């Protein structure tokens, strides 16, 4: 019960900050709320017991990407802020897409089976006592680096590599955007 309440609160906060990202006028404010959103997503993962993902989420998105983001925003010329309109025609298309997205996931959410949240959360709380005598017994546990990397490089290899392609595309796009008009 406690878990569910926490999840709802955190989820609501994430949604709030996500709205903040798109609705704040100032890019730095948006960036900061995006940062907080990322951190809260990390909390979300933690609550689900996905510690590894949570740590990586914070480290990569909050600690790495957001830094570059913020640096980019801070050190580029942002006088255009005042002339750019916040809503235009694309907003309506976006709204339609968002509704479609929510419809799809809502449908999925209510028509598939998930383990009860309470169970997932309680699984991660494992009592460990008398570790001194275990003598590296921890190697058998699920969250050790070995098992994570085995999973990452076998079952999830394609998404992993796809992500790298995505990042390369983003880098190229960034350079293109920053280029002078020729």
């Amino acid at each position: 019960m406690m878990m569910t309440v926490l999840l709802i609160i955190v989820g609501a906060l994430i949604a709030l900050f996500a709205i903040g990202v798109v609705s704040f006028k100032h890019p730095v404010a948006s960036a900061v709320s995006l940062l907080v959103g990322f951190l809260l997503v990390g909390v979300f993962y933690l609550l689900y017991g996905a510690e590894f993902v949570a740590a990586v989420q914070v480290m990569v998105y909050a600690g790495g990407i957001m830094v570059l983001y913020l640096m980019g925003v801070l050190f580029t010329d942002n006088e255009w802020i005042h002339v750019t309109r916040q809503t235009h025609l694309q907003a309506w298309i976006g709204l339609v897409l968002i509704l479609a997205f929510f419809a799809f996931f809502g449908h999925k959410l209510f028509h598939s089976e998930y383990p009860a949240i309470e169970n997932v959360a309680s699984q991660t709380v494992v009592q460990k006592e008398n570790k001194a005598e275990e003598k590296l017994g921890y190697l058998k546990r699920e969250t050790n680096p070995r098992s994570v990397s085995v999973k990452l490089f076998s079952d999830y290899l394609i998404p992993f590599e796809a992500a790298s392609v995505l990042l390369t595309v983003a880098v190229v796009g960034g350079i293109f955007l920053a280029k002078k008009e020729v």
Partner: protein
Amino acid sequence: MNAEKPSYMREVLETREMELNMGPQHPATHGVYRAILTLDGERIMKLNSVVGYLHRGIEKWAEYRTYQQGVPIYDRLDYLGAVLNNHGIVGAVEKLLQLEVPRKAEYQRVICDELQRLASHLMWFATHALDIGAMSVLFYGVREREPIMDLFEAHFGQRLLPNAYPIGGCRLDFPKGWTEACRKFLKALKPRIDDYETLLTGNRMWRQRTIGVGVISKEDAIAYGLSGPTLRGSGVCFDVRRSIPYSAYPEFDFEIPLGTNGDVFDRYLCRMKEMRQSIRIIEQALDGMPEGDLKGKAPKIMRAPMGEVYFTVEAAKGQLGYYIVSDGTDKPYRLHIKSPSFINLQGLNRMSEGALIADMVAIIGSIDIVLGEVDR
């Protein structure tokens, strides 16, 4: 310097220049000096010097004071090399009045001059190293300078701005025990300088920060009228003590250290070597101290015939010149001070082309400016 890099970046990306105001209140400008930097990233595209914050109108003031009255105020120009300023004005007036200075007084002047040069260089060493980030060196430099100040206090009765020499000679003989104290100090200082050289000269970081930074070629250095170690770092042998001899300097045996590349490191090395030479000169002067009179035959009321003289000394910062125009009264009609810092600072524009902000700090330090002298 990879000067092509920013231009390449500027071609490909749409960047904007930034104007950064460095000073007048900035620790690295050694006083109230303001540099308006036009920056491309951290690289300096253009430097616009603004000086004059410390302008006290000493040259105007001098026209209203008799020659004797004026002497103490010139201490305030380069307050880290007060005795040398003093020598300059006193020498200029002596040249104007054609006064004979006793040999013993000249020896005393050489000793105090060189002590002051040591003090000034130590202070430069301290602050320059602090600019580049070596914090401890500040304290070492100031610590070594302290005995010199004590020696001055014992001899002149004042530490920083001693109003060292009267026109025509020197005031008093060294007090009892002064010579021994001076020798002791010099003996202690020599290994200390070696220590500091081991701390910095061979230090990889120090070398990376100083070698190839703020380069000014031999020709440019002459054309920009630099003087002192700033000029000699570029390999130009111009030391007033040798080139336009004055006082008792021709009687001493010393070398003029020269640099080769004209970068911050060379200027640093020059000053470090110069300190050793100063020690050498003082030791020779102490050994060969002649007997005789100290006070020359200076008139009470000094009236020079109409005319003009230009007298230069080698101050710690470079060639310090006094140009006196006399109109027959006991006050200078016009007194112009060629202050080395003022002219050397002008070379900063040339030295800092394409440098980074951090380099700029190192370069200002290596020029060794004193704003009291720049602005007069």
